[in-house]
């Protein structure tokens, strides 16, 4: 696609913006850390645990600056961007520590500013301002739309919706679509119905049994204040020709709205938030995909690849600081690693690495550092060995949340249980060979047949010590990777 005037203007705005930020950063260095991940990946819990550990000086042995005592203190400061909601840290901590329930999920972008006073290794007192930006991963999946025309997007979405388990979920929408003629005159009610059915299909894909990930446009799932507006009232159409849409047709209307969606939703997000990040952590709930089955795993891989395509990764240099912001460190984190015994953690990291291989190779070429880690921002389980008959099962002990079922009955949210979720394979390729040969999940079979079963567990009981510390797995390694060099 040749650069249009609007993309050139966009680039110029980005450059000016980063120039202004660079001037400010000379006096008071600021690091913008983007935290994202698809729904239920654990973004809110990750940020809450990260800030809680920083503020309270948690047990983070691998995070060098804190462990060697160079961080004097960390404190919260008023959120700098006036148009962005503040991350409600206090409420989330209360939910997590006092009420022992997981905080509510991210529905929109939010931001939190943490200021870290530390002494550099050569003894100078310094301050690092850390802006943590939390946004739904679904919005990220919108970014590739910027480069796609309505016709391309329609064709792609339709093709995807006819594959595997998606076809069944999209049946109602497909039936409606078959009756629509793109060349017919524009009709608000037809558009509304199509959009409603299309949204229903997207929502159904997200169900626990299917756990699909690649579901753009993201605002259809999380409309926020745009619900019902024309920018969200469109759907893909079955287009035969690539000729321009006839004026006044349904096709033309849909195309206009698709472009409007890009203009009012996608572009501002990219400009105001995404392009300003310095560091990025992408949280991935691989365990939900294991629960659902190979189709969900393939879908997750597709979503990660799409996400990675829009990262402007690359090593920061003096000049690039001035003109183009770039993300120079990117961490993939498979969250909820506490639902696996630690013997399986390496395998989980390997599977994550396999899913992000292609895009990671490109980012590495551009000079960005990439790492994959299996972590649990809040560790809710203990490990145990279960001996049943002649088997020794590496298991975990935790309190499943009320309503989770396994075997005979449902859990009441107070009983402890030892869970063996299944062995991850040594070789990640085995999960990816063939759409249904890899393993059995909830999508294609009943719960008793599934090869993996990860139950959701309640947050841990608070420790009875003088300092409230949230237990975690490898949060310190993630912090060291994301912040370590700035605190040297």
């Amino acid at each position: 696609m040749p650069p249009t005037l609007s993309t050139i203007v966009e680039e110029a705005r980005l450059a000016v913006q980063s120039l202004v930020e660079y001037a400010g950063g000379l006096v008071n260095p600021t690091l913008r850390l983007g935290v994202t991940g698809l729904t239920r990946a654990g973004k809110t819990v990750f940020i809450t645990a990260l800030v809680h550990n920083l503020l309270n000086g948690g047990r983070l042995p691998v995070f060098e600056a804190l462990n060697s005592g160079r961080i004097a203190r960390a404190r919260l400061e008023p959120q700098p961007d006036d148009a962005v909601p503040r991350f409600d840290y206090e409420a989330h901590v209360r939910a997590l520590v006092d009420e022992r329930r997981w905080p509510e999920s991210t529905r929109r972008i939010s931001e939190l500013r943490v200021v870290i006073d530390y002494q550099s290794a050569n003894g100078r007192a310094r301050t690092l301002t850390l802006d943590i930006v939390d946004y739904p991963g679904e919005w990220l999946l919108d970014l590739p739309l910027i480069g796609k025309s309505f016709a391309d997007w329609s064709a792609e979405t339709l093709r995807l919706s006819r594959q595997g388990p998606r076809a069944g979920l999209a049946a109602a929408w497909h039936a409606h679509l078959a009756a629509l003629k793109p060349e017919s005159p524009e009709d608000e009610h037809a558009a509304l119905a199509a959009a409603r059915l299309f949204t229903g299909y997207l929502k159904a894909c997200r169900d626990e049994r299917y756990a699909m990930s690649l579901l753009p446009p993201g605002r259809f799932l999380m409309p926020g204040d745009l619900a019902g507006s024309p920018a969200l009232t469109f759907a893909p159409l079955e287009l035969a020709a690539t000729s321009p849409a006839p004026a006044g047709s349904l096709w033309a209307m849909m195309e206009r709205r698709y472009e409007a969606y890009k203009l009012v939703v996608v572009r501002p997000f990219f400009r105001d938030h995404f392009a300003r990040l310095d560091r990025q952590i992408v949280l991935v709930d691989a365990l939900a995909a294991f629960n659902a089955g190979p189709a969900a795993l393939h879908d997750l891989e597709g979503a990660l690849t799409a996400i990675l395509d829009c990262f402007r990764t690359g090593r920061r240099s003096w000049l690039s600081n001035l003109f183009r912001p770039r993300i120079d460190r990117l961490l993939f984190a498979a969250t909820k690693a506490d639902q696996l015994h630690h013997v399986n953690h390496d395998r989980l990291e390997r599977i994550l690495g396999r899913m992000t291989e292609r895009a990671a190779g490109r980012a590495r070429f551009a000079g960005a550092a990439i790492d994959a880690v299996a972590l649990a921002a809040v560790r809710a389980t203990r490990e145990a060995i279960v001996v049943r008959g002649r088997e020794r099962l590496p298991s975990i002990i935790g309190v499943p949340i009320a309503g989770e079922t396994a075997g005979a009955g449902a859990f009441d949210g107070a009983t402890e249980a030892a869970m063996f979720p299944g062995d991850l394979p040594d070789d990640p390729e085995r999960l990816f060979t063939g759409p249904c040969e890899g393993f059995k999940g909830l999508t294609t079979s009943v719960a008793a047949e599934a090869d993996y079963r990860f139950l959701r567990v309640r947050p841990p009981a608070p420790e009875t010590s003088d300092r409230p510390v949230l237990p975690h797995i490898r949060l310190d390694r993630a912090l060291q990777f994301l912040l370590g060099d700035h605190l040297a």
Partner: protein
Amino acid sequence: MSAHRKPAAFRLDDPHVVVTSPDEPRGRGRATVLVTPEPEPASVVVAVEPLKARRRGLPWGALFWSALGGLVTLGFGLAVAQLIEDLFARSDALGYFALALAVLAAVALAAVVSREVAGLLRLNAVERLRERAEAALAADDHDGARAVVRDLLIVERVEPRLARARSEMQVHLKEIIDGADLVRLAERVLMAPLDDAARALVAAAAKRVSVVTAVSPRAAVDMAFVLVTVVGLVRRLADLYGARPGALGLVRLLRLTVAHLAVTGGMAASDSLIQQMLGHGVAAKVSARLGEGVLNGLLTARLGLAAIEVSRPLPFVALAKPSIGDLVGDLLRRRERADEAPRPAESGTPSPAA
């Protein structure tokens, strides 16, 4: 991997499920399922080295020595040029001969310098490798550990006695092993044979020193002998572990060794040392020279152990650090040992992983 095991969940309040503690394992009794919680891995304390402060300002000392060295070199060059000119003035043949000699000397000097630089670089590489191995162990870093082991294989590629261990390790590299475990495995596979050889070297040197001290007529003689033995020992240990330092590298290594000795309180008598000294104090009563010999031997052994720690490319984690006790035993038992046939494994020596 065996056939896939199905997921399962067990309620802890189920009468068929019994929870035991890891400290007091119990029989299964009438329970069908036994749950044993594991100790918290999080409570393991990891030591992380604080970052070293960077030195600020100009390195004046280094500048002084570099400038002075430059001046001396210039002066020397001038003198040589002058000499060749004078010889040319006397006879062309002499002049050409001197020129040829000068060129030869320059080439040889370049070769020596490059060898020394290579030695220093190798020594540096070994030191960095040890630091990286420590970091990989602390962080249980998967990729880091693999890089460490790969570099270790490169450092040790010239050591013939490790040919089999090296190929074994190449196979392990392809398997799925946690970062820290991989470093430990590499230590057991690659370092164990070298450790045995190093221990033998130190013991032999200590023995030689103690014998020579006991029989030497003058203090000056055994001082010189100790010095030569120690320098030789440090060099051979470094060669053994793959550092292969040149002369400059050797000086640096000796400095590091002595510094390490000071840091670890090497001169302080450890409990095993006191035990040995008291036990064999009888020997010292019989002859002052014999006692002195034993003491000198002990000091040599200590220095040797410090040299092992400095030149070993991996830290001692999976294998036990050789202690002065093992060596002192050898040193004092040499008479009995001489009668025996060589044994496959010495006391306290961890045998290499089969």
